[in-house]
């Protein structure tokens, strides 16, 4: 979609704005882009061998067989791909880098070729026929490289006639790598930290309390009302599980203040837990059921210990996938919680209900400086749901945004909702050593954003994923935006909500959003 545009000096130029532009293939373009490997003690903290095993080949092949027996998806996906090619132009990392090994089916084939060699008739006796190959050190290195260039976003799975989900293959590959002693620094270090302190940042309870108290002061300065951010309050109704980035990063914090205001306005008692002060669960990224379960289990323990009735999750993409789709399996049954609410519930569901109930006093004009669009975080979009209706994960955030802002425009249909492009930093790739990949992987999303900026003057984009927000604040400057052009959805809510008794500069009475609006 090349378009004629006139810039401020009056010169005409054609600008290519096509988020789906398919680049020329460039073999090996990303072959040297690697994230750092984990130090031995971080691997060991997670129950993996510290360094590459002597008999790694044997162990890796055995692990592959074990996974095929334990996971139907892995087994079926390895067998059923017909190489139709429908997924080849669906991955943002291929679109952004042109490296053919970033085409979803080619990424799967890195592992499938080895699986065929050791586990299928054709691959054992006619390897050349079906592209089967031995597991060599080069192959292992290639796995490390390209399975850490997949954000496990599942966009390819939507396109595949059999629903083959490259994310499942990526997770399995990372688990195999871990099982022979080749871990990724970023993920493994973070999981190890969480196991020690309860959050990905290694923030101890004292520091957390101090941070929350500071935020309470800020809130009181702003509103004149003592809005609380309670920590470890036994007997509270709601346990809030939110990504630790919400405690210190921008624009995440503003989202946290938004949850606090909504809870305050709804008059519910709630608390954060210092023991489970993290929604993120990197166990998912490394495909480790055991690690994912251990991390999830902390939420169960905290809920029991604090005696809460409900669990609400803050804005985090993959955490919500784990929360919505896996938590009941990993840490259930939650028969000790109040069964009249979904377990767990998303803050968006909570706020949406509060809007429906007319509890929130909202002044939309307080967001008039922004012309908004919304980025569907892929783990929310394709790995979870919200509300009672199919597709609620797309509709609820939009409904909440539209309830608090006047100017909203969606990006092109095939780049949002179930077809959303990943931010380029998900799946355990949000590390500086992969910055080049992250910038390139963000290209399709950024191009779609540039489209709505050109068409509707969109200035800001909102998201409900901690990783997306951090990633965008880093890469948006590369695409002509400011780092604060990415916002939390509950930041918009925080801006527009007016609490009872809050003094406002404006004289006009805030409109109340009534039920059903």
């Amino acid at each position, binding site marked *: 979609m090349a378009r004629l545009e006139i810039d401020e000096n009056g010169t005409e130029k054609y600008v290519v704005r096509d988020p789906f532009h398919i680049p020329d293939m460039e073999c090996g373009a990303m072959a040297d882009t690697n994230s750092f490997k984990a130090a031995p003690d971080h691997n060991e903290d997670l129950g993996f061998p510290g360094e590459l095993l002597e008999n790694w080949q044997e162990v890796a092949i055995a692990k592959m067989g074990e996974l095929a027996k334990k996971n139907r998806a892995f087994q079926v996906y390895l*067998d059923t791909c017909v190489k139709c*090619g429908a997924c080849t132009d669906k991955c943002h990392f291929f679109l952004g880098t042109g490296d053919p090994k970033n085409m979803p089916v080619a990424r799967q084939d890195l592992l499938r070729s080895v699986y065929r060699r050791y586990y299928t008739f054709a691959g054992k006796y006619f390897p050349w026929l079906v592209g089967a190959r031995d597991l060599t050190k080069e192959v292992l290195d290639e796995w490390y490289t390209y399975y850490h260039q997949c954000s496990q976003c599942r966009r390819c799975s939507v396109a595949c006639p059999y629903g083959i989900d490259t994310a499942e293959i990526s997770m399995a590959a990372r688990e195999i790598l871990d099982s022979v002693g080749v871990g990724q620094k970023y993920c493994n270090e973070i999981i190890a930290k969480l196991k020690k302190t309860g959050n990905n940042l290694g923030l101890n309870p004292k520091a957390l309390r101090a941070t929350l108290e500071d935020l309470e002061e800020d809130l009181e300065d702003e509103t004149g009302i003592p809005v609380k951010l309670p920590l470890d309050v036994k007997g509270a109704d709601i346990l809030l599980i939110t990504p630790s980035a919400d405690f210190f990063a921008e624009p995440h914090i503003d989202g946290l203040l938004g949850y606090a205001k909504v809870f305050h306005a709804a008059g519910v008692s709630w608390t954060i837990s210092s023991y489970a002060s993290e929604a993120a669960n990197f166990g998912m990224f490394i495909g480790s059921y055991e690690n994912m379960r251990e991390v999830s289990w902390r939420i169960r323990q905290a809920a029991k210990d604090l005696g809460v009735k409900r669990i609400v999750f803050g804005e985090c993409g993959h955490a919500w996938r784990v929360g919505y789709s896996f938590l009941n399996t990993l840490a259930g049954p939650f028969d000790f919680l109040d069964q009249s609410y979904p377990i767990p519930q998303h803050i968006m569901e909570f706020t949406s209900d509060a809007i429906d109930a007319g509890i929130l006093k909202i002044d939309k004009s307080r967001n008039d400086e922004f012309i908004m669009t919304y980025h569907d975080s892929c783990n929310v979009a394709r790995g979870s749901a919200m509300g009672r209706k199919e597709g609620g994960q797309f509709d609820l955030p939009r409904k909440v945004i539209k309830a608090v802002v006047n100017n909203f425009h969606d990006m092109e249909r095939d780049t949002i909702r179930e077809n959303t492009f990943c931010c380029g930093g998900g799946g355990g790739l949000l590390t500086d050593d992969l910055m080049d990949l992250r910038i390139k992987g963000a290209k399709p999303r950024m191009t779609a954003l540039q489209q709505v900026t050109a068409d509707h003057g969109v200035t800001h984009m909102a998201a409900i994923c901690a990783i997306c927000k951090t990633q965008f604040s880093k890469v948006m400057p590369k695409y002509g935006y400011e780092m604060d052009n990415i916002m939390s959805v509950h930041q918009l809510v925080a801006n527009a909500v007016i609490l009872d008794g809050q003094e406002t500069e404006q004289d006009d009475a805030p409109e109340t959003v009534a039920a059903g609006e």
Partner: protein
Amino acid sequence: MLSTLYAVLFYIATILLIVGTGMKVLKYARTPAPLKIPVSPAPRTRAGVVQRMGREVTMFESLFKSNRWIWIFAILFHYGMLLVLLRHLRYFTQPVWWWVELIQPFGVYAGFVMVLGLLGLLARRIVVNRIRYISNPSDYLMLLLLIGIGVTGLSMKFLMPVDILMVKQFFLGLMRFQINELPMQPGVLIHLGLVAILMIIFPISKLMHAPGLFFAPSRTQVDNAREFRHMSAWASQLEDLPESIPTEEGK
């Protein structure tokens, strides 16, 4: 002599096809799915999943949305093949079922449609460099095999007619464990030979996509993880973790 060889070949091919596919399907069915991974938005009920799968199987819905060219050729090929296969039932039934009679006139032309679709898929595999990149020799050979079956079949109909009654006697015989003579014409022999190869490789090739589709958790699972606890056998065997927060931790 050659008839006996073909008879044995078809018995073996049939056994391999049924047993091989059956074993694979059993394996898929028995392999646990540890987590709920439907690709959302996904149906919230079993009935919804049946509808979703129905659309995938009959209309290739996802493919329709993701790649129109592949979809067109895939539909031409698969529906062509379906009609052709149904039409072939006339060689195994006596008297021929009424609905097989009914589709007979369409069945003949479906052969052309099927080959057209296959040629389209082959062309894409060769011309589109992304698809060429992901193709192995087996991917081309599979298409050539099917094209071979289609072309030899059509040639028997339109170029060098064969004694179709004799062929029918042969297959009816096989079904009663007696070996009748096949017409010794190259068209028949090549056609049947290729079909036997297809049957034999079915369970050990990507043709397993047909049954595999029904076992892909991303499409077949119901989106109800919050309402119903999903557990796999091996996961429920994992060691219990402590119910309360260990005291020495974090406080």
